[in-house]
């Protein structure tokens, strides 16, 4: 008798595989740590109207001082992960999977929905160039991108960026641009031939954020509460699909369980872990195991199962530059309170004289607390406050991502006491394109300078991949086949970012999801 299919992880990849099985009428079991937030908040309306009359302590700081964690612990977590309502997304990381690293800021999630409960929801289809040396072509992912688009509801526009993002007829209308983004986009449109000749292209992002009601979820209300509240319905969170699948009895879901490893007995796969409430041991047998614990924890599980504390595996993340954009025309202007406080535009840099295609996400900064800007200006605290008030409304930020391949990889290893150790040298980023991008942005009305551009610490892009590369023919125990199967481990599939031994500058998660669904589809054909 065939055993039930087990998926470890209830994040973007695990849920995508479950959606794939559900369509084929197969009911898998998802085993997940699956933290949830027990906090609810009654904040309504626009953030800036709300804060005129209401104390923000519960939303911004919290009883466990979550909102001050970057100050108190010296971390540099993205603002959303520090708000009391959203801190659950990363809670338990230190206890369940401590990581030692001097230079890699690894962020893990043990929440239902995983890291995507906090993501910017930039969802991009990879073309063949993006897939690079991977033994996978975009044609084999297209049907799954389409199916996931229907589930998620992706907004955007077929514009100048379609040549990089693909033409997509299922897109919801794009967002209303913030005033500064509109200013930039108009200036781009006016002289776009010239910008394009220099390799710079601008257009709307593809976001898993609703501009129309979709699958029972409400459209965005431009309230700027995205950083502050949990379970914002218009930003897709895999937990939305997870909850629907549970309700429709299309999956069995076991939460509160932390899996350590698997072993084999009489041809069966025995999954072992513990119940995180009472520490009691957990065991389950299967013949088909899909591991979707997120690249870092999947790698840990594989290394633990092989009791290997010697091997160092590659780990990738996108090198990332943070580019502040100051709009002189908006200096001293009122804060754009109803702006869409996430990515408003994308920039692509692709030029014949540069080896790499770069992607920039141009982000409106109206959602996070204003205090995150404190001391960003090299002036006294009193002037810093004035700058926050009068200058921050004229700022956007661009996250400029570089692709990454094994020659830039860091290394990940299991230590003798079952902790992970990640080492990564500082990235060396090609700066010539940056100069060209800066020149173009200045012509579009945004001032910036290479001297104020900051290179983020490795790990900060949070697009982890490449530990268990996908190969046409696997030869080592840390490689997976095109169908996700781990070398010489029949029935064990790796379905998250781990098999991607090359990542493009376009955010990776939509491709991880499409690949997970593709693998599930292939497995169901054999069932």
């Amino acid at each position: 008798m065939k055993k039930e299919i087990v998926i470890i992880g209830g994040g973007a990849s695990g849920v995508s595989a479950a959606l794939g099985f559900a369509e084929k009428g197969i009911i898998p079991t998802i085993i997940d740590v699956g933290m949830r937030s027990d906090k609810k908040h009654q904040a309504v309306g626009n953030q800036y109207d709300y804060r005129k009359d209401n104390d923000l302590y519960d939303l911004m700081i919290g009883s466990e001082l979550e909102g001050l964690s970057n100050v108190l612990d010296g971390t540099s977590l993205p603002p959303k992960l520090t708000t009391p309502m959203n801190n659950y997304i990363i809670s338990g990381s230190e206890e369940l999977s401590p990581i030692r690293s001097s230079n890699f800021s690894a962020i893990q999630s043990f929440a239902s929905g995983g890291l995507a409960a906090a993501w910017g929801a930039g969802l991009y289809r990879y073309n063949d160039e993006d897939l690079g040396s991977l033994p996978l072509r975009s044609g084999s992912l297209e049907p799954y991108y389409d199916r996931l688009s229907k589930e998620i509801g992706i907004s955007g526009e077929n514009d100048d960026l379609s040549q990089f993002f693909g033409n997509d007829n299922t897109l919801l209308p794009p967002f209303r641009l913030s005033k500064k983004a509109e200013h930039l986009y108009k200036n781009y449109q006016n002289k776009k031939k010239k910008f394009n000749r220099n390799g710079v292209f601008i257009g709307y992002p593809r976001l898993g954020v609703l501009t129309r009601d979709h699958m029972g979820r409400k459209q965005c209300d431009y309230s700027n509460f995205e950083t502050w509240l949990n379970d914002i319905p218009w930003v897709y969170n895999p937990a939305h699909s997870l909850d629907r699948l549970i309700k429709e009895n299309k999956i069995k879901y076991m939460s509160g369980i932390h899996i350590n490893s698997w072993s084999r007995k009489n041809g069966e796969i025995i999954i072992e872990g513990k119940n995180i409430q009472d520490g009691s041991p957990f065991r389950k047998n299967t013949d088909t195991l899909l591991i979707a614990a997120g690249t870092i924890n999947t790698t840990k599980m594989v290394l633990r199962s092989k009791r290997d504390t010697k091997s160092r595996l590659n780990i990738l993340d996108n090198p990332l530059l943070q580019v502040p954009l100051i709009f002189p025309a908006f200096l001293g202007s009122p804060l754009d309170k109803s702006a869409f406080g996430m990515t408003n535009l994308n920039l692509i840099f692709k030029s014949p004289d540069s080896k790499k295609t770069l992607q920039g996400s141009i982000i409106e900064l109206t959602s996070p607390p204003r205090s995150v800007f404190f001391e960003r200006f090299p002036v006294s605290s009193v002037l810093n406050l004035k700058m926050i008030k009068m200058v921050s409304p004229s700022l956007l930020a661009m996250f400029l991502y570089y692709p990454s391949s094994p020659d830039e990889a860091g290394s990940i290893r299991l230590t003798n006491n079952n902790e992970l150790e990640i080492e990564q040298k500082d990235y060396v980023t090609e700066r010539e394109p940056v100069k060209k991008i800066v020149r173009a942005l200045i012509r579009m009305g945004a001032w910036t300078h290479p001297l104020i551009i900051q290179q983020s610490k490795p790990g900060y892009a949070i697009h982890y991949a490449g530990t268990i590369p996908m190969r046409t023919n696997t030869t080592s125990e840390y490689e997976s086949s095109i169908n996700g199967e781990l070398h010489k481990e029949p029935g064990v599939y790796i379905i998250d970012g781990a098999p991607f031994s090359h990542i493009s500058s376009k955010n990776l998660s939509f491709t991880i999801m499409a690949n997970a669904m593709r693998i599930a589809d292939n497995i169901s054909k054999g069932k």
Partner: protein
Amino acid sequence: MKNGEAAKIYRSIFRKDIPGIVQQRFENPSVKLESAFPESDLIKYRKIIDRISDLAAVEYASRITGTNQLLIKKFQIMIYLGECMPGNFNVFINEKRGLIRTLLMFTTIPFNSVYKFIKGFLALKIKTK
């Protein structure tokens, strides 16, 4: 908590009296923060709080010279706590166009910064010996 520490920091940043609730809220993170610093840093910090009136100048000089992390972090905590208060809405959020005000502010930055740096730097040298 040190005598009037929270009130002094709050006044240095916001130029007004600290609301009682902010004073209370400051205590917990302050204790947590101090536990991560060695005794020598705490002694220096207490001298700064007790002996120097222009804390903003000292904080600025410390930021520029990369010293007195405890003071810098206490300022950061106070900024967050201050932002929580609806009474500070106008301190953080601009609702009116103010280009002239902004340009004027820019003209004062070099003078203010040099003045504050020297003042803070000297205060640290002289008063925390």
